[in-house]
């Protein structure tokens, strides 16, 4: 399994140092829409320069290399434990080599493990793969943006949010207003809707793995995604939260069936540095 381990080290390096093309392209387009001489335009230019330097010098584009979150698909008869061990070994090596910032802190002793491994760290989700390849999707989730994500239980009278998609829309706009510029806008939003709390928070995170250019296969959700992008960008929070037209680059919504008594909505925010990368092995 050593070669898998080495490939996962490379996956870490790719995710930490190079932003996916679709996001860089979206930031480039956003910079064109901001006013000349504005803070927003200058901020986006610096962000784009940062992305370029990070890629060229192979250095982490943000000092918060985040919580590594793996979505893994493993073929039948392949051991999940072996794959997990490869991930843990690769995490220790990548922390030294990339380097990643050691981010795993013990709750009891408050000591940092120093190598990004610990109880439930990194986060790893497994499911069975329909083919013979192992697929690893890695997200380096910054914690500034994790902190401003919100879980709602509808109805929520304060926002006049009922148990329908308009209620979901209200939650998304509320989350962004609460977040302001604290978590590195322009943001990307992953929204998960469904029956149980744990399931919607994961579903929202999975949405952040989607390409900004993809279209939701459910027409109603696709329309809501577009409407939310337009409305969020009217809030005036802007790049860095210092004002401007670009507060979000994308909104992605996923749904599960819900229980008649429950309607949970998770609005998961990613900073502009939505670092995701895939390895097929």
């Amino acid at each position, binding site marked *: 399994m050593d070669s898998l381990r080495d490939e996962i080290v490379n996956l870490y390096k790719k995710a930490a140092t190079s932003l996916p093309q679709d996001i860089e392209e979206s930031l480039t387009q956003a910079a064109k829409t901001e006013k000349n001489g504005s803070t927003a335009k200058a901020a986006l230019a610096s962000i784009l320069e940062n992305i370029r330097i990070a890629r060229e010098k192979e250095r982490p*584009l943000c000092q918060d290399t985040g919580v590594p979150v793996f979505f893994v698909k493993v073929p039948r008869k392949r051991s999940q434990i072996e794959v997990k061990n490869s991930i843990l070994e690769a995490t220790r090596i990548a922390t030294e080599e990339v*380097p990643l910032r050691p981010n795993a802190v013990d709750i009891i002793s408050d000591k940092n493990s120093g190598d990004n491994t610990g109880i439930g760290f990194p986060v790893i989700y497994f499911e069975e793969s329909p083919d013979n390849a192992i697929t690893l999707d890695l997200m380096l989730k910054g914690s500034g943006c994790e902190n401003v994500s919100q879980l709602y239980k509808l109805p929520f009278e304060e926002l006049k949010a009922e148990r329908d998609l308009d209620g979901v829309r209200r939650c998304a706009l509320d989350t962004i207003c609460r977040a302001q*510029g604290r978590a590195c806008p322009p943001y990307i939003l992953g929204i998960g809707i469904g029956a149980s709390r744990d399931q919607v928070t994961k579903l929202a995170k999975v949405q952040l793995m989607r390409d900004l250019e993809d279209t939701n296969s459910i027409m109603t959700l696709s329309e809501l995604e577009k409407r939310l992008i337009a409305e969020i960008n009217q809030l005036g929070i802007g790049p860095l939260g210092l004002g401007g037209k670009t507060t979000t680059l994308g909104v992605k919504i996923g749904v599960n069936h819900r229980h008649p008594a429950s309607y949970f909505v998770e609005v998961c925010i990613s900073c502009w540095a939505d670092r995701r990368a895939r390895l097929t092995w």
Partner: protein
Amino acid sequence: MVGKKSKVKSQKSEAGKTKFIELPLTRKDVLSLSVGDRVLLNGQLVTGRDRIHKFLFNERPHVKEIPFDLKGALLYHCGPVIRRTDGGFTLIAGGPTTSIRVEMYEPQIIADYGIRGIMGKGGMGRKTLQALKDHGCVYLHTISGAAVYLADRIKRVAGVWKLEDFGMAEAMWILEVEDLPSIVTMDAHGRSLHEEIEEKSYEKLKRLLGLP
């Protein structure tokens, strides 16, 4: 400390006025800055985030225990990526962390240690804004997430405190910077750009959602 002469020099460009600041800061320097000013920082600053704030707030260590004179200092909310090298340390990435997390600690720390500048991202709350006014301090916003862009302007790691206890991200790093860019978003005159943007965004939210 440097004498009374202000170390803030201005230069006009297309993008507006840019001020060059030599650290540490004096009260006079701080009072000459207003919301919207773009500044380039030169000299030494220190980092400090959650753990350092909790420690300074609760333990109130004597200044002699801290290997850097915090009087007039700029405290940067940052947990960098640092690589240990033969000669010492090299900073790999060093953008700002979210400042609001230390809101409950900051006013007392500004008052206790005579800090004249805070730098981070996202701005801070009412209590810190009041402390900026009361003690002559300024909040600077630097470029969120631009960690290597900023690292290129951090020329040297001059020292570190609490590395063993708190770890790389949470230690107090003493950094020498050259033309590090930031924007004044909360000044010592009681103005906060963050408050203004937040208010406007909530007005817009109410209109979009038809809320009272």
